[in-house]
């Protein structure tokens, strides 16, 4: 990126100062409520698996699977993007948002075929999350191993 000229910087500052700000309070409340609701649903599902006699560790896997299924289903039905427009990070951060970020491109690129479309584009959005998530996990694991050796 080239350095901005003085004229560009002056304009950019002026334009940025005048543009409408996102409604932060409203967005935060919406994210809190919807994010909380998604987590409550997750808790209900977790409790259900616990009631089947699983322990906490065992119940985690199937709970995540159900939440991913719900996120994918709502994406396929064309509902999740509407939730996202309302809730912002509230529906992006939970695991259902992760499902949405994979199913949305997969659906959309089906028309370019199953290999170069669905296969290649599925991780367009989620790819960076996976790469840096795994890299971070690996680094933390290494650190933990070194400390506890």
């Amino acid at each position, binding site marked *: 990126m080239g350095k901005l000229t003085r004229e*560009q910087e002056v*304009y950019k500052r002026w334009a940025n100062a005048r543009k*409408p*700000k996102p409604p932060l309070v409203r967005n935060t409340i919406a994210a809190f409520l919807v994010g909380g609701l998604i987590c409550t649903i997750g808790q209900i599902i977790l409790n259900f698996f616990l009631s089947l006699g699983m322990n906490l560790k065992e119940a985690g896997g199937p709970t995540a699977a159900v939440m991913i299924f719900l996120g994918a289903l709502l994406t396929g039905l064309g509902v*999740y993007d509407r939730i996202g427009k309302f809730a912002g990070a509230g529906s992006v951060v939970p695991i259902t948002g992760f499902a949405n970020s994979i199913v*949305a491109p997969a659906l959309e690129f089906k028309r370019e075929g199953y290999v170069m479309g669905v296969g290649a584009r599925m991780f*367009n959005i989620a790819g960076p999350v996976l790469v840096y998530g795994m890299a971070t996990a690996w680094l933390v694991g290494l650190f933990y191993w070194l400390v506890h050796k």
Partner: protein
Amino acid sequence: MAEKRVGRNTVIFAECPSFVATATTVGKKEGEGPLAKYFDQVIQDPLYGESTWEKAESKILLESVQKVLQKSNYTFDQIHFMFSGDLLNQITASNFAAREIPVPFYGLFGACSTFTEGLALGGMAVDGGFAQRVLVGASSHYQTAERQYRYPTELGVQKPPTAQRTVTAAGVVILERGGSGPFLTAATIGRVIDMGINDPMDMGSAMAPAAVHTIVQHFQDTGRNPDYYDVIVTGDLASVGKNLAEDLLKKEGYDVTDRYTDCGVLIYKPDVDTQAGGSGCGCSAAVFCSYFFPLLREGKYRRILLVSTGALMSPTTYQQGETIPAIAHAVAVEMDYPKGEG
């Protein structure tokens, strides 16, 4: 030879081309907006019976072309050139529609400024005597643009209030030599302006300086004032860019507040999907063709300055951290044939 240039950027037409007819096809959301009753056709499904959105965009352009021929009682044989463009890579919406159109074809890319770019070029072809009659069109489609420039449409993301929605629309006109008006009387060709904005969710701020540059240049070249026009219309600055453009024009000494509007502001009711307003090649094309053209014909307006505005970035350039260059072209459309030297 009569001098057809004035100032640095402006051409004044000698044999002013006349607008014969217009046609528009728009999407559902546009068909629910404030201009709903003016469009020729509203499609309910973004796929419009096709297997892909890209095919649907070509189809709305093609159908608008067929419609404008039907309205004007001309056949393809009587059209000497077609000028058209869109937002897709390799302007495929226009190129693929043109497969079905047996007319010598110019594909244009000026991002959302394409419509006035086409009018200026088409006007020059007609005035220059290279064509008796030309077709000028532009199209855009919400889903095709969204997936190319931004995110998959089913992704749940919240747009900032500066974001705009790409209009699903095609608008086409026929220009000809020696009609009864309205007339294309002048065109000011803009230059590329980059004022350092790099947020693709804020194209209004990126394009406003280009629009202002072209408008100011138009006034300087022609010696006209804002009062000369009944209305000055920018293409798709939407609410954010429109406010900036108004203030920038004031700084340049031109107060246009009482006669200035923007197609991106006119086309939608503001909501969570449209945020600041509309954008896309089809925005100024459809709003001019459906709304302003009849108002000129009915005599409600006698002189309009239409300034379509384009943001010239691609996903590659903004991912590489480039700022957003922009362009704007202005055309003057007048009901009265200009008197004088001509």
